[in-house]
């Protein structure tokens, strides 16, 4: 087979398949119907005789809706507008599916409602109504059809009743007369010969029927008028609805604009306030920074001073410890005493905060007569409950508890001692 023929065969097969679409509409009633939105499967509708419903909310607009069988056969669908509603009713043999798509700026929404086939009596009533509808001589507007069908059906019932009544009368007359049943021609001919009371009664009934018919005509006319008015009202309502929708849209726009303006104004105000607060904050921050800077400088200075003091303190402690240590090991009591005196002098210098109850020692300098032994000197110092200090150019420093007499007199007393050569207060 040539390629051209192969291609032509394929084309004709596709065309056949497209042509035969309607014959494949039959589906298994128990199978669900697959629902596709924008060619994506979104769910299924149960098709088992109950009114099933499927609602789908999409972020995007709904462009197309398709209904397919499980085999993939396309049963129906619709194309939706970018904004607004689109509804469609799809017939599947006796069942139907109502599709409603609503697209807005926020996305689309689909609702699909499966309407199962009506029951036997419902179908019978419908077929009667359709038959009567066909008997109506002129087709009216689709909206009037239901009313017309009802009226026509009533008329038909009335006609049947009249015929029944006539037949009943004829039967009664026949039954009352003992003669055999006459031929129809004879019967027709014999009607005028019937009793005048019955004829009048029949005429009265016919008049009544005619009157009822006239009433029905009037009712029909008034119904037509009502329907026309209803149409007008619906048209007015839809135009009102449109205007309401447009005004809602306008109001939305206005509200949006107003909101934007307000937001802008609020934004500007907030911006100004923020700038003011920010500048104030900056000034305060600068002040704070300066204060912190000066505090830091003071702190540094204090730290240095504390460090210096601590250093001194440490040095003194070290000296004191050294002194204590030498006290423990040094056998020379003079040096020890000197060190003790030296060491005790330092804390005295520092001890500014000592209580005033501790008296200051009385300090004086002496020279001893030549040949005075160290032992005699020490005994003399101990006798005064004093302590020896440093020796400078032959002058011995001595500390004692302040004497009860004035210093000059005390010095005179000292100078009177045998071993003392000279005494003085200042160095």
């Amino acid at each position: 087979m040539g390629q051209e023929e192969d291609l032509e065969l394929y084309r004709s097969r596709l065309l056949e398949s497209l042509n035969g679409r309607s014959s494949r509409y039959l589906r298994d009633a128990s199978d669900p119907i697959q629902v596709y939105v924008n060619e994506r499967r979104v769910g299924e509708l149960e098709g088992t005789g109950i009114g099933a419903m499927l609602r789908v909310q999409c972020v995007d607009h709904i462009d197309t809706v398709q209904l397919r069988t499980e085999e993939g056969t396309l049963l129906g669908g619709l194309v939706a507008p970018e904004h607004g509603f689109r509804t469609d009713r799809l017939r599947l043999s006796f069942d139907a599916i109502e599709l409603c798509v609503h697209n807005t700026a926020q996305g689309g929404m689909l609702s699909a409602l499966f309407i199962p086939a009506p029951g036997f009596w419902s179908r019978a009533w419908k077929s009667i109504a359709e038959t009567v509808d066909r008997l109506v001589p002129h087709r009216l507007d689709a909206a009037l059809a239901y009313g017309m069908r009802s009226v026509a059906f009533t008329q038909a019932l009335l006609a049947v009743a009249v015929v029944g009544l006539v037949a009943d009368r004829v039967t009664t007359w026949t039954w009352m007369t003992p003669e055999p049943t006459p031929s129809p021609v004879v019967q027709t001919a014999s009607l005028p010969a019937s009793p005048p009371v019955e004829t009048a009664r029949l005429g009265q009934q016919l008049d009544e029927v005619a009157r009822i018919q006239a009433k029905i005509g009037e009712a029909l006319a008034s119904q037509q008028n009502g329907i026309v008015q209803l149409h007008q009202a619906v048209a007015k309502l839809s135009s009102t609805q449109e205007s309401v929708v447009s005004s809602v849209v306008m109001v939305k726009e206005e509200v949006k604009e107003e909101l934007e303006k307000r937001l802008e104004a609020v934004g500007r105000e907030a911006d100004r306030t923020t700038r003011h607060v920010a500048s104030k904050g900056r000034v305060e921050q600068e002040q704070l920074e300066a204060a912190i800077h000066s505090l830091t400088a003071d702190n540094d200075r204090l730290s240095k001073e504390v460090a210096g003091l601590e250093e001194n303190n440490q040095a003194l402690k070290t000296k004191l410890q050294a002194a204590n240590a030498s006290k423990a090991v040094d056998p020379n009591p003079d040096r020890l005493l000197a060190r003790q005196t030296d060491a005790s002098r330092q804390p005295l210098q520092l001890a500014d905060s000592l209580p005033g109850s501790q008296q200051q020692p009385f300090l004086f300098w002496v020279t001893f007569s030549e040949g005075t032994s160290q032992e005699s000197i020490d005994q003399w110092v101990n006798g005064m409950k004093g302590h020896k200090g440093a020796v400078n150019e032959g002058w011995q420093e001595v500390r004692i508890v302040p004497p009860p007499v004035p210093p000059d007199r005390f010095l005179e007393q000292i100078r009177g001692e045998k071993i003392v050569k000279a005494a003085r207060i200042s160095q």
Partner: protein
Amino acid sequence: MSVTRMQNTVGKSQTMSDRTATASRLEEVVSTPDEFDQVVLQALPMLLDRATGSTKRFLRETGQWNDDIEHEKFALRWGSEYLERFLVCGRTEVPCRPLFLFDSLVAKQHSKPEPFCYHPDLLRPLGRFLDGLAARAVISRDALIALYHHVYGWGPGEVIAVTGLNGLESQRIYKNFRRWRDAGWQRTMDEMGLTKAELAELGSQQQRHRQRFNSEAEQLIRVAQAHYRKSEPNHYPCLSRSQWGEMFTQGYGCDYRIWHLALCLDCMQTAWGLGSNGSAIGEKPRLELQVRP
């Protein structure tokens, strides 16, 4: 001879005038769905050629066209797809001018990103077979379930076990298999333009070079699945084994399992064994392409 030529000329001019009349009728406004059906059904060949021509032009403009029968068939197939959608959806657009509506529908399709799955290897018989299966699986549940059979060689029972379905869903699986065997497979092959000779050749290749055949099929089906998986609902992405495990254990996401696992070789490997309550059910599945249903 001159009479015959005259007859041909008359026949051609008649066809031309019919075509012109059909085209002009399509350009006129139709007011009711019935009128729409009537006008469009008379013009099906013309509309099919028009959609095919548009698809060819699109393929040429996007550098995907070659003058061969494979590309011609591809264009025809998509022309037919567009026409089918037009037949169903167009009748809801009345009053309209059918020809303009059809052109706009085709243009809308071609303005989408990747309107169809195009790959040169998918135009050869094996590629067309796989492309047809995956494309059909998107619109038909029967074809979707049949994918398990065509890709792994499983029957209904194995599909139910692997996907961890319950009783009610299981019945549907058997039904899907039956319908696919009865008519679905043949219709798909027809729509893909696969002839009996081509199908026989595929079967023969499978017999002679099984491993190579399956390996080639795996490469191609990955291309097709990656494209058609986009048709799944947005909330059906690939999952980790623990996520699949949770879904299987708690028994939700029945549709998720059926749709995604059929269209994703990797996730089938990931979720392998979860459907049978975690008990080992043999080696992980490998692609074993089945040509026949």
